[in-house]
């Protein structure tokens, strides 16, 4: 599903160049659950941003479902993103002014789904995430675990092929964290590919494969299953 080859990303300030990704090559197959680990600054977030089409690489190739997407313009990237990719963030990133229902509905709005269909799909996914009873609440009225469940619901509501999770349990206590990891595992079992960046060895164990990074390169790849 994802194939990156010799991917490079360089951050420049006035007199310093930092290489965040250094000729990185990774492949992720459809249906895989991959965890990316490594110390701060190793380039894992940069990788996730590029995989999520939020950032351009400076060199190398990025094939998504067999299409070279490394140099897509913003509009094409936005289009590909909204159809194929769901995001889960450490800090949930829900829009505070929208209710639970409206937050989850948002990706469907950008996909142009009509209102009746949106309602149906949001309700199904909220039900699945067991957060239906909170549908009219605003994010700040929810616990961290609940907020992350909403974020996961939002990530999956448009049935993306790929979910990118950036430390999804980083802001949660262990029981809420486990719950979220359980959710991701279930999604993966239903066929969704997942790439997750994490610091937690515990969370990483839920994945099929751990990619360890250092200084913008892969160091080891451990197959867990």
């Amino acid at each position: 599903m994802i194939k990156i080859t010799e991917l490079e990303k360089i951050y420049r300030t006035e007199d310093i160049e930092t290489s965040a990704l250094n000729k990185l090559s990774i492949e992720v197959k459809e249906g895989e659950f991959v965890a990316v680990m490594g110390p701060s600054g190793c380039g894992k977030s940069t990788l996730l941003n590029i995989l999520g089409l939020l950032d351009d690489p400076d060199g190398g190739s990025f094939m998504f479902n067999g299409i070279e997407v490394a140099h897509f313009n913003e509009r094409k990237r936005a289009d590909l993103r909204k159809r194929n990719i769901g995001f889960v963030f450490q800090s949930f990133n829900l829009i505070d002014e929208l209710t639970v229902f409206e937050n989850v509905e948002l990706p469907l709005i950008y996909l142009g789904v009509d209102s009746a269909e949106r309602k149906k799909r949001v309700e199904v996914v909220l039900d699945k995430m067991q957060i239906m009873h909170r549908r009219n609440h605003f994010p700040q009225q929810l616990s961290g675990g609940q907020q992350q469940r909403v974020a996961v619901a939002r990530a999956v509501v448009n049935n993306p092929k790929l979910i990118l999770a950036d430390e999804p349990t980083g802001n949660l206590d262990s029981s809420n964290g486990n719950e979220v990891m359980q959710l991701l595992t279930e999604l993966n079992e239903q066929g969704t590919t997942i790439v997750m960046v994490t610091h937690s060895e515990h969370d990483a164990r839920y994945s099929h494969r751990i990619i360890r990074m250092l200084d913008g390169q892969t160091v080891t790849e451990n197959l867990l299953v």
Partner: protein
Amino acid sequence: MLKNYFKIAWRNLARNIRFSLINIFGLAIGIATCLLIMLFVQNELSYDRYNDKADRIVRVVFRGKMNGGGEIKEANVMPPVAQTLKKDFPEVTDATRIRDYGMPRITYGNKTFKEDAFAFVDANFFQIFTIPLIKGNAATALLQPNTAVISKEVAKKYFGNENPIGKVLLFKDQNAALTVTGLIDEVPANSHFHFGVFASMISLPEAKDQIWMASNFFTYLLLQKDYDYRKLEAKLPNEVDKYIGPQLQKSMGVTISQFRKSGNNIGLFLQPLTDIHLHSDLTGDMQPHGDIQYVYIFSAVAVFMLLIACINFMNLSTAGASKRAKEVGIRKVMGSDKKQLITQFFLESFLLTGVAMFIALGLVYLALPVFNNIAGQNLGLQLKNNIWIVPCLVLFSLFTGVLAGSYPAFFLSSFNPINVLKGRFISGKRSTGLRSGLVVFQFFISISLIIGTVIVYKQLSYIQHKKLGYNKDQVIVVEGTYWLGKDQEVFKQQLLQDPRVISVSASGYLPAGNSYGNNFLIYADNNSAQLVNTLRYEVDDNYIPTLSMQLFYGRNFSKQYGTDSLAIIINETAAKTFSWNQNAIGHTLTRQDNYGKKFTYHVIGIVKDFHFKSLHELITPLVMTMSNNDNSNIIIKAKGKDMQGLLSSTKNKWDNLTTQSPFTYSFLDDRYNNTYKAEQNTGLILGIFAGLTIFVACLGLFGLATFIAEQRTKEIGIRKVLGANVASVVSLLSKDFVKLVFIAFLIASPIAWLVMNKWLQYFAYRIQISWWTFFIAAIGALLIALLTISFRAIKAALANPVNSLRSE
């Protein structure tokens, strides 16, 4: 999608209610001011355009330059001009006249009123001007002598609810009756004349005079369609030679060419009807008119005000950007492209502008009566009559929305989603520079307006306190005293017995208000080739002491000298014009009347120059002759504080002597002040607008200070941990703004100086613009800005550094 945008816009407004209120309120003030000024400007520009043939009507005016006597610029011309031009030029389709007849007394049954809006007009008047008759026939109503068309209001006053047609009003001045033959609703408010009674010109004997040496008739020509009036104007000098020439020679003994050779010139000119209200510099107009200068000034203020409010909106929106950044990031991650975000922010801006527009309409509605009162206008906001206002308001809202919303829309939508979601919210140097530029612009306008206002006020105070050469204080003018007839002397004597009265004089000539216009062509010591135009005051022997004027040389008029009917007192300027200076006493001045009869006067005194025209104009030569016939006013110099008591006892005396006409009076200082009404109104309005722009600009500054304080939270935290105190943090945050205000001041000063200096040129007597005016404006703006910023800065400085550092 739209619903989602509006929902989030609305919730954002509600969540940051304080911010939203500042934003909306600032915008509403800006829009309201702009709307108000637009109403005013629209009204000013609409004058006389209600006439269907407005673009074909011109007014004939009389202009001249006289030796030593300055300019003659009369709005009215001689009686035969209308018919003569119609006869001589085929391009003149028709011609009509108005003879403004002052305040004659009109009686119906037992009701008598001084009719202050009374005119004689030619029979074709209502065919040239578009004032529809509700009753009667516009073509025939004024064909017969002693007929009149009246307004509804006048009809109601005399006849109540009865049908006015056929009713007869007694017009005592002419000892004639006026039969009402037509009824109009009223003359539109945006007309350069307003009369309630239009009497038939054929009733007025002087209308048929073939005199080309006296101007009294407002004369309008209806030209052929699309005919350029300038072509006709170019032919008018011939008419002057042909008709005025012979009469000039007869009365002055000089031919028109000799007259011109000795430095004089006179001529007839044309003025388009639609130019009268805003472009007229003529004397003797039927009512005070506007000035295109003020239309420009206020239009500029309107544009500036709107810009300031929009800049505010931009600054406040971008100030709140850090709060919106996360949303932008999420939306982008969810698949929104930049265009959709721009649309969203524009919609928000339209929503806000829409709300602000409604508030602004409310503000305009509330402010209109006050504004009308201050500006002496009669503006309205009736949607019923001005349905065009609705699309205009919608367009105006959209325009404001785009103006205010464009920068925030592009700015916010350009955020990098990764950075904002990671909490790395960095605003680029470019946008900071732009914001600083916007603040400089706001303060440039505010400071310019402050400087302008201070200068206007200083000039007004100069006018108020200038030594005028006479004393206008505690002087009562009792008007229309010819009604007393022979009892006038009794009235005067009775007044003199009142201990509150110092002296009493009878004269129709007053140095303040609208009373001058009596041109008097004279020559000195039998040198008839050197004609000088002067202004003549016909006064009695008490005039000079009553108005506390000063005699430089010679003596005042006195009843003890039997020869004083041919004595003359001249002002300093006249003495200089005749090159006599202080040696004027004993010289003679000669005037020829229209029939060539000579009158030679002996100079008996020189009166110190006094301002008998507005301070817009230089003092010109003036002469005073003694007359016991001109008695249209009684001028009373009073003392003590009991003015009200004096007025009521004066009224009693009046009522005892005559029942023919009601007692009317004015104060000389009020008449004086009314001359500068336009300037006073402008000063007041400018002051209010300057205040409002400063206020709105400060709202923006407050927003920006909030923004900067938020951005520098970490820096402030670190500085405090390292030992910075509150004062140093406040100064850190304020320093940049002080710089901006100072830059604004540097730009504003020369521009304001140029504009205000130009404005002052309209006054012949004016103040010098002093450096401290600018200093006051700079200090004022700086203080206000500092107060605004320090509120925010102190709050930031007092915050616990631990919290701000943890937020990283």
